[in-house]
């Protein structure tokens, strides 16, 4: 099994995915985002994994999306399986997938504020209180 990593830009992204589809990469298995908050510019890195079953190969595409535009073309028309993944990325990181048929929140309730997996979103930890514990001032 061989795997390969391709770095690309937002403009080239869709064309590259199309060419992968014609090269017998039948499945898009995973799409996720890494938030490089204050570590790298542009801030978001979209990582997409492709699998070719006939050739037994994997390919990874990495695209950087900047904080201002926050948008990247959707690939649901090429790979329908991207649907849920893109909605998840939108929900968790707030990335806009252009021309996605139904870009709504998927995991969080619709009235949720913010995008939880961003690095500047706190984990929401609630300090644990114990009954009858001595008071700490």
């Amino acid at each position, binding site marked *: 099994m061989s795997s390969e990593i391709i770095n690309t830009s937002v403009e080239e992204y869709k064309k590259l995915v199309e060419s992968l589809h014609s090269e017998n990469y039948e499945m898009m298995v995973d799409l996720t985002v890494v938030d490089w908050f204050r570590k790298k510019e542009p801030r978001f890195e979209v990582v997409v994994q492709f699998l070719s079953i006939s050739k037994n190969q994997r390919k990874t595409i990495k695209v950087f999306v900047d904080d201002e535009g926050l948008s990247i073309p959707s690939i649901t028309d090429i790979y329908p399986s991207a649907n849920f993944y893109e909605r998840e990325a939108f929900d968790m990181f707030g990335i806009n997938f252009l021309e996605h048929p139904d870009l709504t929140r998927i995991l*969080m*309730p619709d009235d949720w504020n913010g995008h939880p997996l961003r690095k500047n979103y706190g984990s929401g*930890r609630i300090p644990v209180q114990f009954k009858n514990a001595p008071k700490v001032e």
Partner: protein
Amino acid sequence: MYTPDNILTTTIDKAVRWSRTQSMWPVTFGLACCAIEMMAAGSAKYDLARYGMEVFRASPRQADLMIVAGRVSQKMAPVLRQVYDQMADPKWVIAMGACSSTGGMFNNYALVQGVDHIVPVDIYVPGCPPGPQSLMHGILTLHDKIMDGEINR
């Protein structure tokens, strides 16, 4: 031997309590991993039927007991409350597992840190997941509680 006209005297109080414990029907509220253990408790080896409660009711209207088995997310919380509100009185709640009791190991934005924030809980069953034996112990403790506790709910 056939003996006609048998009479058993008791107080109404006791009779009510006894009947409440002996056929306690739980509503199916399986959420996560703990639900699998709850199902295991209902199946062949552990056999909840011994306590007259193998009938997991799909409709909350017919149930007396809600076993909250698993982690309750912020999105699920309103649903849980609604199901609880739909149950007919008297009703009891068992929080099964660390997650539903306290939030467990997931102290983060997504989970309700303990179902006692949304519904009143009678029994907490610790464990992650609590084995079927623990769940049964919880249920028996609830039976004791009903037998000795307040009759008005």
